[in-house]
């Protein structure tokens, strides 16, 4: 491997216990996308959970009326950047799942634009996941997934699906957009689960 003298990039130092293996800390918030930014009008926006006894759906207004939280968390992208102490506003997935009668073990998040990502239910409950509509004290920007995105900060950030519109609850683990083409089914940054076979 050829080292380029003096090249450092824009990393900054951070305490080792905050930075998963192979990650570098940035102050930026890089915008990464698998496709064009969708623009769902809020009057037509819904969040739906399917796969339980019956589908449950919220309109934007109904969603906003749910109890919201402020979350502060580090986020880790599989492309190797980490951003510390990011703040979000959103509704806990626990709150949403309270409305659903189910015994599913897995979920697939689906989004405007067709993106999907799969997760074990375990990674969505007990205060580990939210549907976020605010970032850094403001409305979530469309480029960062607004009006709402999934937020699952303990897993690599491709799991925090932008422009999320709902969850399909399942008995089995169905690989999503990236998981079906090389990225790890679960994606725990602390175990460096980036790719198939990790």
């Amino acid at each position, binding site marked *: 491997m050829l080292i380029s003298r003096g090249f450092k990039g824009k990393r900054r130092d951070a305490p080792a216990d905050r930075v998963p293996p192979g990650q570098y800390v940035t102050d930026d918030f890089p*915008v*990464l*996308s*698998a*496709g*064009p*930014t969708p623009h769902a009008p809020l009057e037509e926006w819904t969040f739906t959970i399917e796969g339980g006894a019956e589908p449950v759906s919220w309109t934007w207004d109904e969603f906003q009326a749910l109890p919201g939280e402020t979350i502060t968390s580090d986020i880790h*992208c*599989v*492309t190797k950047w980490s951003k510390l102490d990011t703040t979000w506003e959103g509704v806990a997935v626990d709150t949403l799942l309270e409305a659903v009668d189910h015994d599913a073990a897995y979920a697939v998040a689906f989004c405007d634009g*067709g993106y999907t990502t799969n997760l074990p239910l375990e990674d969505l409950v007990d205060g580990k996941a939210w549907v976020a509509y605010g970032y850094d004290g403001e409305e979530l920007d*469309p*480029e960062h997934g607004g009006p709402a995105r999934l937020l699952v900060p303990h897993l*690599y*950030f*491709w799991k925090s699906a932008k422009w999320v519109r709902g969850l399909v609850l399942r008995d089995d683990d169905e690989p999503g*957009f*990236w998981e*079906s*083409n*090389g*990225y790890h089914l679960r994606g725990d940054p602390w175990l460096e689960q*980036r*790719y*198939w*076979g*990790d």
Partner: protein
Amino acid sequence: MIGIAELRLDGNAVGGLLGELFGVDLTAMPCTCEGCGAREQMACLDVYVGAGIVVRCCHCDAVMVRIVQGRGRTWLDLRGVASLELEE
């Protein structure tokens, strides 16, 4: 802040990567979209950089190619390419 339009590149941006994999420069090679049947040179297709790279049809936005690289491997999903024409 990077504007929305700037996130979209074109097939020129994956020319080096795909050229290394295929052993031939693909940027001028026609690809046919599985979704809508449009036939365009690779350089004309839309390219997005997310967790991996996504090449989309410039007419219908369908996903044509997905590329993930890591641990010395490249995963190449070409399901959205009905046909890739390679010139001799």
